[in-house]
């Protein structure tokens, strides 16, 4: 199952929930089958959780998990390179480009990499076949292990504008095929979906624009982390619009710093029939642990069970949502 952790407003605790969720799930798996598996390969076979930090502008999950990175790859956009000898300066490339990323000036062709979306339309439309594409590096993607947890992140280079291509390539690189329980539902033999694939947690960036959408695409469930304040509520609504109304995904809410503000988030969730799956109280100890890069469940181990219950309720909701989605197929069991 693929779960995206989103929020709308920044700083509400997306990374906190993502990190503590995978730590709790991994600890649970360890307790169940503590037979001394050491190698990462064994962990993968056991289906240990995978955490993907999709906030490529400001990736933070790694600061808490401190993974050992094993693979690293440069990524970016495929941008056009023009073979001037073959170019007839006809201007077709500039005509088809929707982003003004290529211009023909006299006998010269100018390419503006920061405007290019890498769609390949200029290459396809060049009548002289004078264009080929080269990688314009805008960031790095990495993967590795933090104990039994597989970890991956993308990092956009400073000064680059576009996060989406990095997120897209990161997801393609690390998310195993068949991880989604919804997409695989027709072929799935397990209606519960729990054995259908790896647990994949995507830590999304803040906001509601294209990088957030890319982080939610293909997920089975979106978990919104919010704080019970007017800012938190305002942005939660926008994020729910994206996840539920635009993408048609089931959503649930975690209220962080519960008790700090007002009742707006509770009222909204009740009105819109959005389940509140967990409440994390306003607790200075949690904030202080966070400030030092210490995961909450390491500081306050009592929360492990709560995070496992959180995951179990997501699984349950996802199965029920699927049940509704496919008509009279029955719900849950």
């Amino acid at each position, binding site marked *: 199952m693929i779960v995206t952790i989103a929020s709308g407003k920044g700083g509400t605790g997306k990374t906190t929930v993502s990190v503590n969720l995978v730590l709790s799930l991994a600890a649970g798996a360890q307790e169940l089958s503590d037979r001394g598996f050491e190698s990462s390969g064994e962990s993968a076979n056991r289906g240990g959780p995978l955490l993907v930090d999709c906030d490529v502008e400001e990736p933070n999950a790694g600061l808490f998990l401190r993974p050992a990175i094993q693979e690293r790859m440069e990524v970016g956009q495929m941008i056009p390179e023009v073979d001037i000898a073959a170019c007839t300066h006809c201007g077709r490339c500039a005509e088809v480009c929707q982003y003004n990323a290529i211009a023909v000036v006299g006998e010269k062709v100018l390419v503006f990499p920061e405007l290019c979306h890498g769609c390949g339309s200029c290459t396809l439309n060049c009548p002289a076949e004078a264009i080929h594409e080269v990688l314009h590096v805008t960031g790095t993607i990495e993967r590795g292990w933090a104990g039994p947890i597989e970890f991956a992140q993308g990092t*956009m280079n400073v000064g680059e504008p576009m996060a989406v291509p990095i997120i897209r390539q990161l997801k393609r690189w690390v998310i195993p095929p068949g991880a989604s329980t919804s997409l695989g539902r027709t072929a799935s033999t397990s209606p519960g979906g729990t054995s259908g694939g790896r647990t994949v947690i995507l830590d999304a960036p803040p906001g509601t624009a294209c990088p957030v959408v890319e982080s939610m695409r293909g997920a089975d469930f979106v978990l919104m982390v919010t704080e019970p304040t007017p800012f938190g509520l305002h942005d939660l609504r926008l994020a729910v619009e994206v996840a539920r109304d635009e993408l048609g995904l089931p959503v649930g809410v975690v209220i962080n710093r519960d008790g700090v503000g007002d009742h707006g988030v509770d009222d909204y969730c009740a009105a819109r029939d959005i389940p509140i799956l967990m409440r994390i109280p306003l607790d200075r100890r949690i904030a202080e642990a966070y400030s030092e890069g210490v995961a909450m469940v390491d500081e306050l181990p009592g929360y492990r069970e709560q995070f496992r219950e959180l995951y179990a309720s997501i699984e349950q909701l996802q199965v029920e949502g699927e049940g509704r989605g496919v008509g009279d197929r029955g719900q849950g069991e």
Partner: protein
Amino acid sequence: MKQLVILSGKGGTGKTTVTAALAHIASQELSIVLADADVDAANLELVLDPTKLEEHDFVSGKLAVIDPGMCISCGMCEDVCRFDAVLPGDETYRVDAVGCEGCAACVYQCPEDAIHMEEQLAGRWFRSDTRFGPLFHAHLFAGQENSGKLVTLVKQQARLLGLDTGAALTLVDGPPGIGCPVISASSGMDLALHVVEPTVSGVHDLERVLGTTDHFGVPSLVAINKADLNQARSEQIAAYCAGRGVQVTGLIPYDTVVTKAMVQGRPVTDYTDGPVTEALRGIWGQIKCRLA
């Protein structure tokens, strides 16, 4: 007229709280224009109680549309689409509006000319009045692209009105991150104030956003929010900034009064005269010196 943008890198560190407070304090001394450049999660309006005077459509970005009557299901569009946005439908192909980047590659490759591009209404922008000055703000529709363009538009409108009315300062509430909306919000600014929290993530993200403003030649100041939450990290930030030649203008203490003011829909400086307000007044003093 000077222009100041409030940034943070990491989200939720207090940009809007600081912007609203500075709007309140600054407007007591000079005439200001405000812009909320966090167009996909605009919150400044929640604490400034604006009265909307104008509302405009933001039309931007195009979307491919397949005419099912003309589609012969050859699949060429799906082959050329690099954004996985063309999906096989029941009988003909269809475009996933969320995935479509508007590149039109499919339009040019379709042998039947069955695909055309349609402009999209991507959001709205507003001119409002607040008791601290005019506010330009916007709402980018859920999941839309081109937030950078809408940021630029909102900022330009604020600047033009400021120049017309002889305002002394444009105050811009920025978006989180370091990508296109942040670059758009920072361009042309005289100064960026970075609001940072004393946490490992805060430190990490500050380095990246300072790199971004440096890259685009915008001078920076730093304010540490919730500074007493982790004294050691606050000192680490101060040392880092000193090493980089960036001035730390003030330390805002951790105080739940900030949330109480937000719940009341008011700038914190307007709500209380405690240590938080005192810190913010000090920060404004330093900004003034720097902009003078």
